C-alpha cells in the first residue's frame, strides 16, 4: 500500500508542479487494516496547485493532506480517485492517477460521459464545500483573474472550524412493517459511545455534510444492511418491540448487574470485540481476578455462597463448571445430591438443598 501511495505521490508531483515536501521512497509493507492509516500516507503531497484549467479564475491551492485525513469515512483515496478498483485498499499497487490524466483541461464533457477537468474538480469539491456553507462560496478556493497566491494560512483555516461537528440524535424510533412488533428504537449514542462502533462502520457511504451539516431527520444508512452486520443472528425481538425502548441497561437486558467496578469497563474488556450482543463472556474474568477471587478483594459471599472452611483454598474452576467461572458451581463433585432439612443447609437458594457431608466416593483424598 505504501508503494501505491508513493505512486500517487510521484504522479501528482510530476503532473501538477505541486508544492510538495521532499519525497523519499517508502518501504513496502503489507497492510491489512481497513481504516485509513495516516502513517501510510505520510508521503503524499501536502499541497497540490490546481492550475491547469484556463479560465477567469486563478489557480487553486488544494490542501491535499487535510482532505486525505478526512477521507477515512468515505472510501479513502477512492473517494476522489474513483478510478481505483473496489479492493484498492488491500492491493499492493493501486493505480492512483491525478485527475488530469483522464480529464481534459479544456473543453466540455465528451459524449462518452467523461467530464472535463474543471467539471471533475468542481464536482468533487462542491459536493462537500457547498453543503457546509450552503452557498457556492467560489472565493473560498478561488480569487478572480489569477490574483491568487499560495496561502500558507489556508490549511490552518481549513483545520479550524469550517466543518461543523457531526451530530445525531441520541435515539431514533422507527415504525417498521413488522407485524405485531413494529417499533424499533435505535439508540445511536449507545452504539457510538457505549459499544464503541466507529462512524465508518455504518456510514461509509455517506457524504461528509450528511452528518456534519446538522442533525439529519432521515435515515442515512441502509438500516437492515448496517444492523445486520452485527445482528444477523439475532431474533426479531432483539430490536423490534411493541413500544419505544429505553437505552441499553446491562442489568435489565442481560441479568448481569454491572457493579461499580465493572461499570467502568468497556464492553470489549469482557466481550469479544464487535460480538458482544451474541457471544457470552468466556474466560473474561480470570485476567483480572487471577487465580482467586479473594486476591482482588472480591467477597464471594456476595454471590450468596460464602467460601468458608475448605472452600477458601479452592481455585474458581475447581467448583465452577465448564471452565467458566460464571457458570454455576458443581457441588456434586464433593457433596451428595439430596435435599436435607434443618440447620445443615448450605445451598445457594431455597429450591435446592445440599447435604454438607462430603461424598467420599467422588472426592480425592486430600480434600
Amino acid at each position, binding site marked *: 500500500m505504501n508503494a501505491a501511495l508513493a505512486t500517487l505521490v510521484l504522479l501528482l508531483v510530476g503532473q501538477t508542479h505541486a508544492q510538495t515536501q521532499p519525497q523519499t521512497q517508502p518501504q513496502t509493507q503489507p497492510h491489512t487494516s481497513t481504516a485509513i492509516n495516516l502513517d501510510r500516507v505520510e508521503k503524499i503531497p501536502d499541497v497540490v496547485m490546481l492550475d491547469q484549467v484556463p479560465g477567469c479564475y486563478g489557480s487553486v491551492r488544494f490542501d491535499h493532506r487535510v482532505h486525505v485525513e478526512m477521507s477515512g469515512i468515505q472510501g479513502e483515496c477512492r473517494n476522489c480517485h474513483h478510478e481505483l478498483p473496489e479492493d484498492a485498499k488491500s492491493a499492493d499497487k493501486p493505480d492512483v492517477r491525478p485527475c488530469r490524466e483522464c480529464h481534459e483541461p479544456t473543453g*466540455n464533457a465528451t459524449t462518452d460521459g467523461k467530464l472535463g477537468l474543471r467539471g471533475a474538480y468542481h464536482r468533487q469539491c462542491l459536493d462537500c464545500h*457547498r453543503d457546509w456553507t450552503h452557498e457556492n462560496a467560489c472565493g473560498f478556493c478561488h480569487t*478572480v483573474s489569477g490574483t491568487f497566491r499560495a496561502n500558507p494560512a489556508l490549511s490552518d483555516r481549513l483545520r479550524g472550524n469550517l466543518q461543523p461537528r457531526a451530530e445525531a440524535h441520541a435515539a431514533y424510533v422507527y415504525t417498521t412493517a413488522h407485524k405485531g412488533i413494529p417499533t424499533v428504537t435505535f439508540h445511536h449514542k449507545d452504539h457510538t459511545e457505549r459499544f464503541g462502533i466507529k462512524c465508518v462502520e455504518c456510514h461509509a457511504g455517506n457524504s461528509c455534510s*450528511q452528518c456534519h451539516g446538522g442533525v439529519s431527520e432521515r435515515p442515512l444508512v441502509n438500516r437492515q444492511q448496517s444492523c445486520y452486520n452485527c445482528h444477523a443472528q439475532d431474533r426479531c425481538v432483539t430490536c423490534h418491540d411493541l413500544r419505544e425502548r429505553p437505552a441499553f441497561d446491562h442489568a435489565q437486558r442481560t441479568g448481569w448487574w454491572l457493579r461499580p467496578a465493572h461499570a467502568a469497563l468497556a464492553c470489549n474488556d469482557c466481550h469479544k470485540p464487535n460480538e458482544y450482543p451474541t457471544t457470552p463472556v468466556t474466560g473474561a474474568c480470570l485476567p483480572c481476578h487471577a487465580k482467586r477471587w479473594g486476591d482482588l478483594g472480591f467477597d464471594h459471599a456476595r454471590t450468596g455462597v460464602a467460601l468458608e472452611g475448605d472452600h477458601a483454598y479452592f481455585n474458581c474452576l475447581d467448583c465452577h463448571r465448564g471452565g467458566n467461572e460464571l457458570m454455576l458451581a458443581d457441588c456434586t463433585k464433593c457433596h451428595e445430591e439430596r435435599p436435607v432439612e434443618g440447620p445443615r443447609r448450605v445451598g445457594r437458594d431455597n429450591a435446592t438443598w445440599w447435604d454438607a457431608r462430603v461424598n467420599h466416593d467422588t472426592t480425592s483424598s486430600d480434600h
Partner: protein
Amino acid sequence: MNARTSSQITPKSGSSVQAPTDTSRRGFLRVGAALTALTVGGKALASSGADGAAKLSEGRMGVLVDLSRCVGCRRCEWACNDANNNPHGKLEECDDQSVFATLRRPRTDQFCVVNATRNPLADPSPADPPIFAKVQCMHCEYPPCVSACLVGAMEKSPEGPVTYDASKCIGCRYCMIACPFERLTYEYDRRFTPRVRKCELCLHRTREGKLPACVEICPVEALQYGRREDLLRIAHERIAAHPDRYVDRVYGETEGGGTSWLYLSARPFEQLVDLGLPKLPDKSPAERTERIQHAIFKGAAGPLAIAAILTTLHFLTRKGGHA
C-alpha cells in the same frame, strides 16, 4: 380510392348532361364530389407530418442540463451576457443569491436566467436543497415561433438553434404569442428599431468551433453541448445507470414536440413547472396548425376541391334551370 372516385366522377358528370332528371344520380354526384375533396385533403394531411420531420437535420445540436448537478452559481447568466454583448457586472456579482427570491424570465438584455425552487438564503436547510434550473429559448424541434412568423424572420437552422433576423422582422410579435415557453422578449423601449431578443444557442460562437458561452463556463459541467441524438442517448444511459438519482424522464425529449435543450432531474418535473419547465403535450402546437394549413393548401388541394364543388353545383343548377 381516390383514383376510382375521380374516374367515377368524370364520366358521370359528363353523362349527367344527357340524363338530368335522375335525382338519385344527382345525390350520388354530390357525395362523390365531397368524397373527392376529403380524400385529397386527407392525403395531404397524412403527408404533411412526414414532411415536417424531414426538415430537421441529422446533426442538429442541443444542450443536456443535469439539474441534479446545477449548483446555482449563475455563471451561465454572466457568460451569456458577456457573449451577447448584454450589460453585466463583475463575475463575483453572480454570487448574489438574493435573485432567487423571485422566479425570473429572460429579458431583452439577458437571454438566460437561473431559477430556484426556493430561496436558499431564506432557509439553508441541507436536508432539502433547492433545485436550480437555467431557462432560456428551448430551440424547439418544431418551433411555433417559426411557424407563426409571417415573414420568415424566425428560422430553425440546420445546426439546431432557432435564429432571428431583425432585418426581416415586422414587429408583429406573433412569435411571442406562439412560444409555449414564453421565452421571447421584445424591446418595447426601443422606439424605432425594436427587436425580438432571445438565446440563439451562441450560433456565432459554435460556427467558430467554440462552445456556447453558458456551457463553456459551467463549473460543474451540468451543461453538456452535443448532437441532440447523442445527448438523448447519454441522458437515458445516465438514468439507467443511476435510477436512484434521476426521475425516469428527459424533459424536452417530447415536450412541445421536442426541444434542443434537454433536462435531467432528481425531482419530478411536475414540481419544476414554476421554474420554467411547463407541462406541454407531446406535439408542437405548430404541428397541428401547420397540418390544417398545409392540408388545405398543399398542391392547391383546398382551392381545387372548392372549385370542383362549385363547378359541380354550377352544372347541376344550370341543368336544373334548363330542365
